[in-house]
């Protein structure tokens, strides 16, 4: 009997305790309804975009929001005037406490907690969502629109200056990331690949592989081939890191950025000119009859046939350095411009090293593919020169775009869109 009673007491306590915990937990995670004040105009397409977006957040994404609409073009003249008056009152109140409010250009105009948004672009939509999620967990104490309605005076403290969520996005597979990092990563991959897609070093690598295959010595092929590729990578790493350091030193100097911007515009235009020039000539390998190139090929032959590995490797390292120096001129300034973009974005130290390594990986990707195929098939394959002319066009367009941004809109290049 005692046993049974104890069991009931224990069961009751467990049930009660469990339920109590659940209640507390439920209260803890209970989402707060976030008021979204939406100043709109029924005839404006951007407003329609935001309208749909807010309704999707509420309907499809089940965010706990209450959308309060003020149509500044309502068919009812009384409502129309009230909405307009309130919108201008809110804008005026914001202008008094925040310089940024001077840029508000009418509808769509959204106020959530201590934040306000104007426009309908992707960044605005992302921020609306992020701050709704934030206020759902941590409600903002001040409702700016309600305060203006009540005739209260706004002060700076009523605004939410937290910008940590401004660029955070939840991407499929990757998860939550800072979109500035993604932009920079994509730019790194694109510029690295375009930069690497030039025929200068590829010709030398193909010659080297061709000569190595003739030796029929796989060990020699691996050692000397990898020596060439790793030296190229190390050389580029050194060049890029040096440029990032220099660019970081001059980051505050507008004239430096202007010079690099002009440089990008000049080389961009030159690359596009080279593309149009190449359209008039046959696709193929351009013969370079200079003694420098011939000497490189002679040296490769000499070092490949060198019996002692240390000497052969030292020779190949020297050749790779010379080739990459020449290639630097071939790449028409992309590394310099890329280094400046990293510096503008405040990338330094280990982060700069990581981006540089990714750049080099994509810079060398065509060489790595050609080398890997040769190693496993004992055949040299080449990539069509027909596509190298497009690298001039793409590289040129990238440089022109970066040049324009660097000179006229440096903020965008810092991915502060």
């Amino acid at each position: 009997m005692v046993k049974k009673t104890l069991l009931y007491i224990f069961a009751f306590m467990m049930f009660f305790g469990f339920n109590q915990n659940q209640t507390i937990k439920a209260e803890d995670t209970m989402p707060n309804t976030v008021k979204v004040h939406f100043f709109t105009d029924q005839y404006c397409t951007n407003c329609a975009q935001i309208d749909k977006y807010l309704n999707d957040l509420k309907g499809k994404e089940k965010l706990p929001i209450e959308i309060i609409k003020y149509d500044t073009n309502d068919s009812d003249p009384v409502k129309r005037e009230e909405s307009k008056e309130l919108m201008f009152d809110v804008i005026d109140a914001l202008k008094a406490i925040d310089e940024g409010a001077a840029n508000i250009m009418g509808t769509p105009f959204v106020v959530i907690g201590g934040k306000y948004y104007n426009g309908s672009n992707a960044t605005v939509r992302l921020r609306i969502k992020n701050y709704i999620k934030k206020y759902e967990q941590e409600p903002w104490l001040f409702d700016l629109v309600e305060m203006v309605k009540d005739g209260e005076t706004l002060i700076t403290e009523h605004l939410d200056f937290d910008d940590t969520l401004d660029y955070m996005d939840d991407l499929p597979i990757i998860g939550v990331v800072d979109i500035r990092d993604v932009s920079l990563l994509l730019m790194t991959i694109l510029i690295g690949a375009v930069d690497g897609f030039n025929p200068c070093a590829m010709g030398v690598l193909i010659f080297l592989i061709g000569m190595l295959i003739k030796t029929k010595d796989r060990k020699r092929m691996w050692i000397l081939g990898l020596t060439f590729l790793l030296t190229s990578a190390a050389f580029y790493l050194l060049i890029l890191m040096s440029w990032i350091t220099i660019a970081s030193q001059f980051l505050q100097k507008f004239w430096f950025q202007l010079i690099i911007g002009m440089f990008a515009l000049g080389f961009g235009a030159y690359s596009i000119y080279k593309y149009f020039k190449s359209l008039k000539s046959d696709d193929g390998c351009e013969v370079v009859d200079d003694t420098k190139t011939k000497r490189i090929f002679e040296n490769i032959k000499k070092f490949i046939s060198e019996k002692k590995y240390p000497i052969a490797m030292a020779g190949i390292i020297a050749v790779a350095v010379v080739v990459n120096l020449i290639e630097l001129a071939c790449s028409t300034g992309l590394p310099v411009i890329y280094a400046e973009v990293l510096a503008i974005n405040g990338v330094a130290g280990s982060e700069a090293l990581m981006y540089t390594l990714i750049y080099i990986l994509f810079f060398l990707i065509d060489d790595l593919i050609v080398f890997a195929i040769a190693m496993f098939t004992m055949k040299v394959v080449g990539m069509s020169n027909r596509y190298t002319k497009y690298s001039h066009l793409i590289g040129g367009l990238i440089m022109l775009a970066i040049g324009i941004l660097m000179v006229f809109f440096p903020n965008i290049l810092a991915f502060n869109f």
Partner: protein
Amino acid sequence: MKQVILITSLWCPSCLIMRPKYEKLFKEVNIDIIEYDYDEDIEIVKKYNIGKILPVLIIKEGGLEVARVIGEKKKKELKKLMEEFNNG
């Protein structure tokens, strides 16, 4: 008697791409390609005055040059070349 000469170079990716295509095409008409290396067979290559782009394919008939193809060519252009080769 037709003769086909191909001038290539070891460092040239376009030559690597075009060589097997030419070999396949001329094998069909039972003609062996005579290949010269731009950097090795300097004296012979000089005689053909090949200009600035590799590879260069030269078709000769009775000792005289009858056709010349410079650089990388698409399948359609090669088909046309072979039609001319067979008709000529």
